[in-house]
């Protein structure tokens, strides 16, 4: 037996194939080879234990148990297959025909099928086997009938998925008859999952048939199958365990063979769906090469000091470096905007600062100080406490960032209870106060997130951050998932918090207009590096990097001339898998020259608070300094 094309030759697939092949061979040759000795009574060897001649002993007529088990492969398999094919055939026909029936008939049959499905198939099969009369045919029919509702429902569900597709609508428009529709368009589209279920059902059917025979409802003497042999073996299990063990092992072997086949087929079907998994890298959360503790010199009075931050992430195609060489610093009460396209590395920068990068990411940095403390120098426990109380993160989507199962009170109080040892009452009082700060009533404490609106949830997130009285708040696209009026409320709230608590805020956004309005200074990130830093008030007309210029030009509010069509930035950011030398913006840059492609421009001071990484910065007419320089 060979594997169907497209099946992956995994060890599991091989095992399933070998087991099934051996069953098929046994079913074919078993009765020919062992049939005679299985049926030959031997009055001198009745009810014997294991011996050389009879490895699993003999039965009450002196027949060899092993030979009987091997011979019984054929009836056991055949009956099970017959039952599953009959049941699947009838069920699929029933389920598929409802797919092309009218609405009322469809609902009626669906309801009936659901009613029947409330009962376990084995119980239904037992019931029907009693009604049909004990015997191989009765048991087989009973089992087939018991399987019909399951297959009917599966077919209905699958067919409903196909029925909604354009493809079928088109066929219907062409005026194809219902039956043609069914045979040509519905069934072929759902054949694969149906085949998979039939395979799994074959195993279940074999076990159930053995169960019926075991009960005395299936194959009747003088015929025999595994279930009946098991029953006979169990009758004398206290004298001799092997005659019960042999048919049991046979059923188990067959059940596992089908189970394994189902597993392989299902895995194969799933594999064609999503992309392959990322291979697991070795974890090195705090970076390698690990810089010496202390890193760069500490600068007084900084909330956050990051120098030369690099992040490396594993991907299926090899490691990428989505952040390389980022440095930034925040003073108390300062709002700094970090702006860039998605994929520019801005969110990863934030996650690296907060030590929240995904598993497998590697970080290195010369300096990372939060509120004066070098994070690399702290013991893990202290570092956790320091990060938990010094830094608050506000994430993009408050709907998913809050735990749907926990009350707001729990989510607000848990950090201070864990890290400041606050009592429940004290923490709850603080939580009510934090909610008041974000203009929410204390009643919200008792709610769960799904009972709140999007804006309310983001306020809860902010309140949760405020609970620990952080020195730094990193807000990663906190308004992107919200509508425009709510966006304004949230940015206004953040400004107030900054004013009242003198916490510094690192505001990450792709929206250059929003950042320009709301922040004091701006960092522009492109392809993993910072390409320009400048005061917000110079953004509209003082930006010097061609990329910043292009970003600003793509926003109607920031350009003076509204009559011109909005320019968009042509091209795409560089592929992080194939880093090229030179300026990362070079392929898209209108000002590029030969030099740019080979030499990476460093981030250099233009003025006291304005730095740019470009060999040929855009001149600014109004700026006499620049005019003089060029």
């Amino acid at each position, binding site marked *: 037996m060979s594997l169907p094309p497209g099946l992956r030759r995994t060890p599991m697939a091989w095992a399933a194939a070998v087991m099934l092949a051996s069953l098929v061979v046994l079913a074919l040759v078993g009765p020919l080879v062992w049939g005679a000795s299985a049926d030959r009574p031997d009055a001198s060897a009745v009810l014997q234990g294991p011996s050389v001649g009879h490895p699993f002993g003999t039965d009450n007529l002196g027949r060899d148990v092993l030979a009987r088990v091997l011979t019984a492969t054929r009836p056991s398999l055949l009956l099970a297959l017959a039952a599953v094919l009959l049941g699947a055939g009838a069920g699929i026909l029933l389920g598929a025909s409802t797919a092309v029936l009218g609405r009322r008939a469809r609902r009626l049959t669906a309801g009936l099928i659901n009613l029947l499905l409330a009962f376990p198939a084995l119980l239904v099969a037992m019931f029907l086997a*009693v009604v049909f009369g004990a015997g191989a045919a009765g048991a087989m029919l009973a089992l087939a009938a018991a399987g019909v509702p399951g297959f009917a429902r599966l077919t209905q569900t699958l067919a409903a998925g196909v029925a909604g597709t354009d493809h079928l609508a088109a066929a219907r428009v062409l005026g194809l008859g219902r039956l043609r529709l069914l045979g040509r368009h519905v069934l072929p589209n759902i054949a694969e999952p149906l085949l998979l279920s039939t395979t799994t059902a074959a195993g279940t059917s074999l076990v159930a048939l053995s169960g019926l025979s075991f009960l005395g409802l299936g194959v009747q003497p003088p015929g025999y199958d595994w279930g009946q042999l098991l029953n006979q073996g169990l009758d004398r299990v206290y004298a001799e365990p092997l005659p019960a063990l042999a048919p049991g092992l046979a059923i188990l072997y067959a059940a*596992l063979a089908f189970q394994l086949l189902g597993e392989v087929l299902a895995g194969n079907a799933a594999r064609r769906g999503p992309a392959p998994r990322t291979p697991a890298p070795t974890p090195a959360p705090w970076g390698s090469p690990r810089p010496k503790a202390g890193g760069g010199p500490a600068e007084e009075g900084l909330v956050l000091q990051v120098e030369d931050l690099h992040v490396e992430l594993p991907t299926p195609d090899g490691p990428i470096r989505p952040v390389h060489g980022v440095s930034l610093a925040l003073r108390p009460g300062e709002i700094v905007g970090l702006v860039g396209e998605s994929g520019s590395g801005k969110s990863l920068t934030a996650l690296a600062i907060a030590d929240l990068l995904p598993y497998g990411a590697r970080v290195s940095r010369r300096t990372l100080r939060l509120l004066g403390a070098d994070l690399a120098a702290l013991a893990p426990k202290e570092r956790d406490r320091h990060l938990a109380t010094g830094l608050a993160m506000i994430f993009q989507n408050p709907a998913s960032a809050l735990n749907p199962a926990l009350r707001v009170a729990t989510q607000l109080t848990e950090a201070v209870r864990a890290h400041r040892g606050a009592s429940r009452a004290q923490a709850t009082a603080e939580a009510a106060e934090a909610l008041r700060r974000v203009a929410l009533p204390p009643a919200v404490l008792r709610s769960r997130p799904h009972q709140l609106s999007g804006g309310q949830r983001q306020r809860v997130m902010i309140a949760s951050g405020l609970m620990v009285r952080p020195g730094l708040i990193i807000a990663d696209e906190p308004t992107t998932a919200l509508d425009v009026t709510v966006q304004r409320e949230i940015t206004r709230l953040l400004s107030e918090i900054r004013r009242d608590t003198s916490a510094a805020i690192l505001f990450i956004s792709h929206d250059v207009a929003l950042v320009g309005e709301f922040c004091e200074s701006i960092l522009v990130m492109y392809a993993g590096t910072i390409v320009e830093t400048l005061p917000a008030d110079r953004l509209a007309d003082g930006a010097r990097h061609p990329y910043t210029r292009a970003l600003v030009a793509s926003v109607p509010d920031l350009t003076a001339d509204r009559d011109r069509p909005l320019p968009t930035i042509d091209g795409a950011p560089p592929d992080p898998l194939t880093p090229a030398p030179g300026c990362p913006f070079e392929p898209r840059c209108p000002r590029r020259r030969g030099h740019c492609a080979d030499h990476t421009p460093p981030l250099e001071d233009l003025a006291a608070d304005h730095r740019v990484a470009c060999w040929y910065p855009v001149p600014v007419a109004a700026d006499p300094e620049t005019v003089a320089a060029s």
Partner: protein
Amino acid sequence: MTRGPTVSVPRLPRHPWTVFLGRRILRLFLSLAVVLTASFAMIRLIPGDPVRAALGVDAAPDLVAARRHALGLDTPFLTQYRHYLGGLLHGDLGTSLTTGTPVAELVRTRLPATLEIAGLAFLVTLAVALPGGLLVAVRTRDGRRPRSELAFTVVTAGLAGVPDFVLAAGLTALLAVGLQLLPVAGAAGVESFVLPVLALSLAPAAVLLRIVRMEALRVLGEDYLRTARSKRLSPARRYLRHAAPNTATAALTVAGSLLPALVAGTVLVEKVFAWPGIGSAMAQSVVAQDYPVVQAMVLVLGTTVLLAGLLVDVLLAVLDPRSAIREM
């Protein structure tokens, strides 16, 4: 401080519960009607004469007639159905053809034993699969420990395929002779529960383990777990308080769907262990062709399954009102 928009905290309106319970109970009654009718019809559908089959061909004709009369088989069909339902209302489940004792008596003495092993097996399934699945998910998340993951997949796939009665028979064969560690037949003492419960819960536990792991892996990738991480909560709190409750709905839904098969499995498993429950009574009466008993056992097992299903659904609705009620 800004005055935000006035905040009202919406609650779920009251009527979804009424709708949910109403529909659910309607469905229960419809299913009960199916069971009742099926169990009633069974004895009438059997080819040949069930009374003669049970009493043997050489039974005295007047005894057969008396039994037929006692079963009401000599009256019109609808009258029989009315009598059957009326008898059920009064707790009359008929009389055994072989022993002559009331079936209700048999049910009363045997049902507790079945409910005990089925309930215990279900609890064991949950007790193994819920924490186990979460633990394996935590240890294999984001592609950690790929070997353990593979081993887990292969082993649970295998265990999920072990039929309960075959496992029961195997355990009996292994433990009956030689290793006399555990009682292999009858119900006497706590130890006698071990093997039946093990046989009934192994495969469901393996199935549920896989589901819980998949579900827990999904939850561990959710944003709110990153939030919990950003709060530097302890792993115990992150996994037990933040992840576990969010896996409960899916886990319980699947567990509930495993329950009917588990109850049906008691018939075969009880037969193997000679467990004094409904299942073994059914197995015996099937062989003895004692149809009134079979009929009653089908009724009792079917009803048990339906009530267990109702219990699980209501529990789900309490745990997660939104999803459970929306699905109705």
